[in-house]
């Protein structure tokens, strides 16, 4: 090849490199106007960033999708990273709102830069889902058996304790593969809170929290990960929010509640559990192992965490308006997915709380 070649090559390469970077920059800069122009809403565009619980994620993603249709100027980006992440990131102030189904403990609340509100958004059930041949859908489990399995004391599916509860069921002679969460999880907090209440051994050895020291099993990230793991691993068992089991056609167990009845995880069961517990003014309450014949024992509130004093007026208003919509119109979207609506009495209390959210000294709510 000619001697000139390297030079011309060099020039063209340099030009190509410049072109690529300019194009990339142009794409990201030019995208703004074109995207914002699509919205036909007169309002100024507002972006809300949120992260946290995976438990309500299917509902939240539906909400932001639907809400985005009505209010094209409001973009709510919710990332399901885990409740621990939701609490941590709202504490660091890296997100506008956090999602969690574990409430922040008193000790941690006082360390925060401002007053943090727990806004309940929906009620859900943590279900025990499993992967067995023929996927029998009507397995019955008692609190003792669940604790035994997750403590690693019951290790085979055909253990007499499981068989005694399920006389008609053909249980395989296989090892139980326990799947739990690997990230900081509110679902874990709810589940371990329940186990701590029903099993002294659990409470002593493990305790409750968003991350615990699991005696057995393998970890997967998020409700998504646990469901994925159970779905792909024969003989496994895990705990997930109801919607994840439903959407993936996985069976889930009926659990014996505090009054001795076996209850399936249903909207009614969850609502009954919520009705059986008095909700305090700051909404931080556990409704696991709730009294009542119909109560599903592993039910939980899930919260959106926001600061009472919102620094940015536009964001604050958009946030509170969205929450207002979520606790009213939004509740209708939950049923299909398997989330129980908030009790009317709780909705009233939330309305009052949302009205206390301020931005620059004024109420943030636009209504």
């Amino acid at each position: 090849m000619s001697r000139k070649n390297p030079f011309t090559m060099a020039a063209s390469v340099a030009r190509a490199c410049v072109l690529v970077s300019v194009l990339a920059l142009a794409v990201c800069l030019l995208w703004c106007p074109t995207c914002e122009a699509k919205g036909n809403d007169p309002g100024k565009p507002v972006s809300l960033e949120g992260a946290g619980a995976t438990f309500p994620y299917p509902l939240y993603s539906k909400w932001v999708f639907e809400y985005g249709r009505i209010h094209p100027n409001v973009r709510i980006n919710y990332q399901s990273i885990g409740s621990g992440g939701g609490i941590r990131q709202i504490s660091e102030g890296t997100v506008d709102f956090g999602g969690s189904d574990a409430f922040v403990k008193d000790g941690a609340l006082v360390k925060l830069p401002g007053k943090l509100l727990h806004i309940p958004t929906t009620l859900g059930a943590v279900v025990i889902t499993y992967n067995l041949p023929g996927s029998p859908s009507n397995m019955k489990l008692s609190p003792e058996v669940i604790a035994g399995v997750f403590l690693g004391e019951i290790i085979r599916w055909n253990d007499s304790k499981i068989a005694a509860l399920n006389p008609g069921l053909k249980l395989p002679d296989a090892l139980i593969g326990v799947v739990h969460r690997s990230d900081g999880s509110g679902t874990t907090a709810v589940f371990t809170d329940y186990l701590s209440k029903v099993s002294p051994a659990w409470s002593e050895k493990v305790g409750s929290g968003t991350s615990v020291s699991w005696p057995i099993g393998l970890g997967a990230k998020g409700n998504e990960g646990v469901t994925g793991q159970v779905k792909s691993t024969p003989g496994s068992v895990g705990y997930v929010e109801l919607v994840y089991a439903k959407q993936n056609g996985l069976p889930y167990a009926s659990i014996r509640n505090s009054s001795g009845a076996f209850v399936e995880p249903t909207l009614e069961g969850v609502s009954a559990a919520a009705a059986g517990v008095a909700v305090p003014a700051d909404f931080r309450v556990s409704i696991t192992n709730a009294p009542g014949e119909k109560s599903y024992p592993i039910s939980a509130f899930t919260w959106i965490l926001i600061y009472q004093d919102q620094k940015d007026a536009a964001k604050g208003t958009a946030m509170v308006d969205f929450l207002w919509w979520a606790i009213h119109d939004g509740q209708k979207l939950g049923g299909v997915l398997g989330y129980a609506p908030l009790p009317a009495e709780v909705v009233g209390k939330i309305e009052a709380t949302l009205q206390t959210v301020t931005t620059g000294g004024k109420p943030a709510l636009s209504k």
Partner: protein
Amino acid sequence: MAADTHETRTANRGDLVFQRLIVVGAVVMVVLLAAIALELTRESRLSLSASGVRFLGSTAWDPVKELFGGLPFIYGTLVSSFLALLVAVPVSLGVAIFLVELAPSWLRGPVGFMVELLAALPSVVYGLWGIFVLVPWLRGGVEPALARSLGFLPFFSGPSQGFGMLAGGLVLSIMILPTIASVSREVLRAVPNWLREGALALGTTRWEMIRGTVLPFARSGIIGAVILGLGRALGETMAVTMVIGNRPKIAASLFAPGYTMASVIANEYTEATGDLHLSALAEIGLLLFAVTLALNALARLLVWRVSRVAVQGSRR
């Protein structure tokens, strides 16, 4: 070429400015490295003062009781990396020897290119493949077979879940193979030809020539390549997290889930709510940083030594 610049530098102000500018640019690299070390040390201060050296030997990882020990992660990292080396070192040495000494020349380019492609594929794609191809294969075929034939060994006992230390180690071995193979190939290529010719002239077979002449010459470079591979294995995150099972417990069985230092950081670093928990994760990060730093320094030294000797040798 750099020593002759004194007059030119004083003669031209542009040169001075230019030099200052690029020095500033270059120093960024050093600053970055120092800043990473500082930041990790700062973040892990709480944990360092709370548990100190005991952190390394403790197996507790209990966020509820706020007890944190790094041993399960150190163990998991070491075992998965060791497994990876166990598989990858012989195979990649075979590849390197084949490519440099044995393969017909028309085959060298394409095969070398394909092996290097393995290095270019993103980690997350290995993870995806691991979840949907490797893990089901291990669960359905390999692990039951191993349990049947070698089940008396503690390494091959327990339920076959697919996700576990074995899967983690195998994915890692596939990922570090191209690193070791391509660096070893470079090292073997650096062995001067007159050495080979001398051996062959004495009537050795190819293998005797390789074993007696090429490998001893290249030894420290190959060790360097292996250490580079080990460095990559220790720090690899995504693919391992996706298949290793993420459980902070030490188990003898390779079928059992494990955890590595990099994966626990990926899973918990933005999630830890307790200060001590966070700090313990940072300490794991610091440890990982220090280990990979030391390994890389060592590996560079070894590879560099071979190439220097080779250059001197070829000049002779």
